[in-house]
């Protein structure tokens, strides 16, 4: 068993706690999570910090983990069909371009995410909406 130690920031709430993980790299599984000595958490964690990483094991409890791009090929309410990334990306690009040409850039709304994605993805999302689509219609779930 090959083990590695990785320290990262907890994905729950704005406290920014640091967690130290032991990962079995052969099995690609987390073995243990213990509090690290972060600036804000100083060696403590709450229950979400201790147990909140199990979703990475995909225990199939509540909802299905998304594993493949999907399109409703028969329009609204038709079933989702698995497609390749190439097809998904070019389909999204084509539909957004059509809507932009027909109604203008302000007919498109995009969101950032205050959750797992991280700052870099949020930066790119607002850059995409502003520079590529041409609208300031970008916001995120800060208000909920």
């Amino acid at each position, binding site marked *: 068993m090959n083990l590695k130690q990785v320290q990262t920031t907890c994905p729950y709430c704005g406290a*920014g706690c640091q967690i130290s993980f032991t990962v079995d790299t052969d099995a690609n599984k987390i073995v243990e999570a213990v509090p690290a000595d972060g600036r*804000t958490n100083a060696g403590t964690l709450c229950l979400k910090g201790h147990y909140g990483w199990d979703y990475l094991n995909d225990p199939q409890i509540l909802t299905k983990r998304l594993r493949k791009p999907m399109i409703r090929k028969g329009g609204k309410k038709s079933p989702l069909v698995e497609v390749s990334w190439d097809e998904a990306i070019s389909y999204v690009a084509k539909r*957004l371009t059509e809507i932009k040409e027909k109604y203008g850039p302000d007919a498109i709304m995009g*969101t950032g995410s205050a959750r797992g994605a991280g700052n870099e993805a*949020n930066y790119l999302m607002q*850059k995409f909406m502003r520079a590529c689509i*041409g609208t300031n219609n970008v916001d995120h779930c800060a208000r909920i």
Partner: protein
Amino acid sequence: MSMGIPEIEDSGCLLCFGYNGADSHPIVARRIVRGKQKGMKIICVDPRVTETARISDIHLQLKGGSNLALVNAIANVIWSEGLTDDAFIREHTKGYDEFIEVIKEYTPEYAEPITHVPAEEIRRAARLYATTKPAMILYGMGVCQFSQAVDVVKGLANLALMTGNFGGPAMGIGPVRGQNNVQGACDMGALPNSYPGYQNVTDPKSREKFEKAWGVSLPDKVGCPITHVPRRILHEKDESKRIHAYYIFGEDPAQSDPDLAEVREALDKCDFVVMQDIYMNKTGLYADVILPATGWGENEGVYTCADRGFQRIRKLVEPEGDLKPDWQIIAEISTAMGYPMEYKNTEEIWNELIDLCPSFQGATYEKMEKYGCVQWPCRDKSMEDKGTPYLHKDGKFATADQKALFYGTQWHPPLEKENEQYPMTLSTVREVGHYSVRTMTGNCRTLRNLEDEPGWVQMNTEDCRRLGLKKGELVKILSKRGYCITRCLPTDRVTPGATYMTYQWWIGACNELTIAELDPVSNTPEYKYCACRVEKIEDQEWAERHVQELYEDIRAQMGIHTGKGAKA
């Protein structure tokens, strides 16, 4: 937050306003407990007896929706009893006299019938806050999720200004941001009015700078806030303003937003809905395209915690399946639409953005590796600039003349009041073991075992007796907009007439009831106040079966096969 989280425990007095740290941020709440142990005085303002209220010196158990009346009354006492820091007001602020004109009438006796807090208690709290140094204010969604929210934030800042509680450690005012990276999403300009680093889209100089960096001309109008989207899809007459495409990334508006019936109708009527996420969710049922992203633990990046701290997130395991990191999906769509975005990794993106944001420019990956956390502003790339633990040092504010501005505003009541048909009120609150819409925590075995569908409605024991409700009994709760089924939790931590629910349950979905009225400035919904009614369900056996069937049906829609009774 103007202060750092570790400073909380070193304050002399904490005014904890509409903030229930024990449920929303247990590790921040720990600092409050440690402060108490070190002798910090605590004033808790909350309609519920929260854990902070239990250890407080003074608990002002106000009526929901009366925040600004109470804040103005506290200011009134500080002013009328001469407890102000006159030197600070003179040297570091503007607009004091106009502010006093507004709060003059808010005597404690005037506020008492509005807030349901005895005048003498308001006086005691005001005196304790104003005469203990340093004093700190923390606030949460109990301030922000009202149709009068920004006025209350300014009202709290007024208290800190008039008592000179800015400019040093363990003082100031702190919104403790709820979601892990809500500070970061704001920092990055995922906002309709600002570019990254809080540079305004309507300011020609900022726009010019980003136009030059990104090589395109940029729109000068403020964009659409997220809470306007349902109406912009359903009711907008002007075709150029109507939303026809909605690219939803890492959110589940069909669960988390107010008035879910309206949200569902909007998603259904929107021409093109893209969902980019890690788990199937309610919004996915309306998406035309689903793009599967890597989740936390499977990718790299930076989060900003509530006190402006940039910290790294790191990959723990390799993602399984045909997944891409969020940033890569966005870059590929942009490239396919003719605006190429090419980055090798998150650090390249980070280096581009910090060079466009003076307050973040010094916060390199190298520094985050070395120091663990870098709090912005961090302006210089040299390793000596380790960031800024607290803001407004020496009373210098981020305005042109470095002076802070007082803003006085009048209190107004919440928009939907109790009435004969809906005689009680509903406020949404947080669940300690679950996060947001729970697609992550609900898929963690230990956390799921702690609390599951259909959640609880917290009600005063007197109300429960009147309605003949026992603990654990399934009840129906209704508003003008919809209804749901949940379990009754009798508790004297809440006052008669008020009810409280958490928002992550599918069956006990309180957002079927909530109202989409917004604060005019922040556009935050009034999640903390709407009129409702609780009804007893006579046939509990049927209700239990019904809840079970609903749960299995929704899980089947989410792609989980639950065995008996579940649809294929």
